[in-house]
């Protein structure tokens, strides 16, 4: 009898999970956890609509496949800004009505409350995140200060971790080579500029360990496999603050962009998905996520009061990419550039990687 009870309980929970109303696909790791805690759980608690989180290395890929195959199982996906624009252009996403988004807690209409560019035809920003580089303070007491130091193997010996992909890596190489953030995309738009970026990468190519999933970067640093690595700033923050790892972020030459919630065309629960996005990107929803990971909320009203990390003492402000001190030499990722050049530059990047 007891066995039967356990079995039926297990089955019914499974059935509940399968019927959950809103399926959210995100990036896993510390970021996925922050969204689960900040958006999914409170949304379910408030509305009674069930939610499920699924992980992916990059949700933009599976949702496109789902829409083209006509078998969409995801209601909301968290994608990079350039992907949100590209997928929207390709007709893979539902459009989002700005008017349906709630005003800020202080009464500011949504259109004015969001930072510039945070709401597009098909997506709403959940946060501003950045690709930064970080090092192990036990290895370098006098740590690197600039992007140029990242490429200085004589001064800072040791392996380097970099994301396996052209985006953010090429811009970073150019900034390390002395290009001002304002000029990066102009330079990268020319063949000479691309050559220059690859020439800079050539100087450390032998000593680079390439990572693919966001969680690999802090792992490589923790294992001592690399002396410094590029990483998403929130992942390093969580390793350093929540897990007490001796990691230090260098904000010089950070590359920031918006992360977007989108709804794939043909989502099984479109109405609930829109309701979820409206909740998650409200003043409160954005604050709840930002209390779990150091990505900046995309509404002005969410930053009115100081944000405190879940440990109850760490103030989030200085750890956000958008903090004034961190913006000194920062580059906003140019989505238009990447929508245009993604294929070309990644082909070149792959050929460069494979060449010995």
């Amino acid at each position: 009898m007891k066995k039967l009870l356990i079995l039926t309980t297990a089955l019914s929970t499974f059935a509940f999970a399968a019927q959950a109303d809103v399926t959210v696909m995100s990036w896993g790791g510390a970021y996925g956890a922050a969204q689960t805690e900040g958006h999914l759980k409170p949304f379910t608690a408030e509305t009674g609509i069930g939610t499920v989180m699924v992980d992916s290395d990059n949700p933009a890929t599976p949702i496109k496949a789902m829409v083209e195959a006509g078998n969409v199982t995801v209601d909301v996906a968290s994608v990079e800004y350039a992907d949100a624009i590209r997928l929207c252009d390709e007709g893979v996403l539902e459009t989002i009505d700005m008017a349906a988004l709630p005003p800020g807690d202080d009464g500011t209409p949504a259109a004015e409350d969001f930072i510039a560019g945070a709401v597009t035809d098909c997506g709403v920003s959940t946060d501003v995140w950045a690709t930064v580089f970080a090092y192990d303070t036990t290895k370098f007491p006098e740590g690197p200060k600039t992007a140029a130091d990242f490429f200085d193997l004589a001064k800072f010996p040791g392996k380097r971790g970099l994301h396996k992909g052209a985006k953010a890596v090429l811009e970073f190489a150019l900034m390390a080579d002395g290009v001002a953030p304002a000029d990066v995309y102009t330079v990268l738009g020319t063949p000479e500029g691309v050559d220059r970026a690859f020439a800079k990468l050539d100087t450390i190519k032998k000593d680079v360990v390439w990572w693919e999933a966001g969680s690999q970067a802090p792992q490589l640093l923790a294992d001592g496999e690399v002396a410094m690595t590029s990483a998403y700033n929130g992942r390093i923050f969580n390793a350093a603050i929540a897990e007490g790892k001796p990691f230090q972020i260098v904000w010089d030459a950070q590359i920031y962009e918006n992360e977007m919630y989108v709804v794939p065309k043909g989502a099984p629960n479109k109405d609930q998905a829109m309701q979820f996005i409206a909740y998650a990107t409200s003043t409160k929803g954005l604050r709840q996520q930002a209390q779990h990971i150091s990505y900046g909320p995309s509404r002005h009203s969410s930053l009115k009061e100081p944000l405190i990390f879940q440990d109850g003492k760490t103030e989030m402000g200085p750890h956000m990419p958008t903090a004034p001190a961190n913006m000194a030499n920062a580059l906003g990722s140019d989505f238009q550039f990447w929508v245009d050049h993604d294929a070309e530059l990644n082909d070149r990047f792959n050929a460069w990687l494979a060449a010995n």
Partner: protein
Amino acid sequence: MADVSQAPLQTADGRPLKAALAKAQARAKRRAFLLVLPLLAFVLLTFVLPILQMLQRSFYHDGFSANAPATVAWLEEHPQGSEIDETAYAALVSDLAAMQKAKTAGAAGTRINYTYPGTISIFKEAAREAAKLQPPYKAALVALDKKWEDPLLWVTFRHAASPWTTDFYMVSMDLRRSTDDGLQRAEPEMRIHLQLFVKTFGLSALITGLCLLLAFPIAHLLAILPMRKSNLLMILVLLPFWTSLLVRTSSWIALGQESGIVNDILVGIGIVADDNRIQMMYNKYGTILVMTHVLLPFMVLPLYSVMRVIPPSYARAARSLGATSWTTFRRIYLPQTLPGIAAGSLLVFILAVGYYITPALVGGADGTLISNLISFHMAKANWSQAAALAAMLLVLVLILYWLYDRLIGIDRLKLG
């Protein structure tokens, strides 16, 4: 007697024996067919159809042809070499306006972008402006972006005008279209596919060779030991075989990385200096090392199954007739193990050629294989390119298989 032999044999109920037999056999055949039907349907649905679908995708992309009907019609009326005149641009602008309404400029631009990189943006930009453009359209488009008058762009259009195309195979062979509609090699810094195919087949051959070298003595030992001991050893061979591939690869990372156990031990006993640790992960040595280990059981098992049934008396007879141990091995033992060697090598090689997860995790930059590039194109949703590369891989493997059949003979294969 003669009468009996001429009259057809009949069954007890008077039917001709031949017909009755044929009928009974047909019934048995039908029943046998019904038994294999589920398997047949399964193989067809999950194996044959997807492969055919993949092959079709590698030749098919309607991103441009379906969304630019007027331009396609113009190209059909005007053969290659015609001047790209105002009517062509007018057709293009009307298509762009329609694309803007249907939100398909991205899809059309993506298709052109595959064979003429850097053009997706001019599609989107022109589509946004298309409704406002005034004739002459050529001047209006060129004012938006100079690329619109590039003859190469129009050559690209012509090849994208039909959904059926070999463009993706062209790219897979590191070729590009030239302005006069010929083919030329891609710029040196963009060449990747051919070298990656060569690397994939080279590394797979090396891994197969290493597996054979390692597996041969193991299989021999397993075959000659008494059953009880060999069963114990067999478990050691099978245990990794039963362990998840991901777990084994991750364990190798823990063992082999620069701060890993192997390096720590070597540094500890003073063989390797601390600042000069061996780099055996995140490069091609990592790929070779881990794949050899992962694929070893596929070599051991066929070898073992062949070696176990080789009677030891043959070797003893050779020795008693005066052959040296080397000659005995070379002329008596080795030829008898050939079916096992052939089966193991074929199995390991074909598995290695398509290996994806291990090179992705431990291959770093120079240890990645063609399958990783296929997965890259999948991730970028460029399925036609991924399909073309996969189809080329399939054809190359089939050629090797055919060669193998000609040289060794597939009927000599023994898998256990």
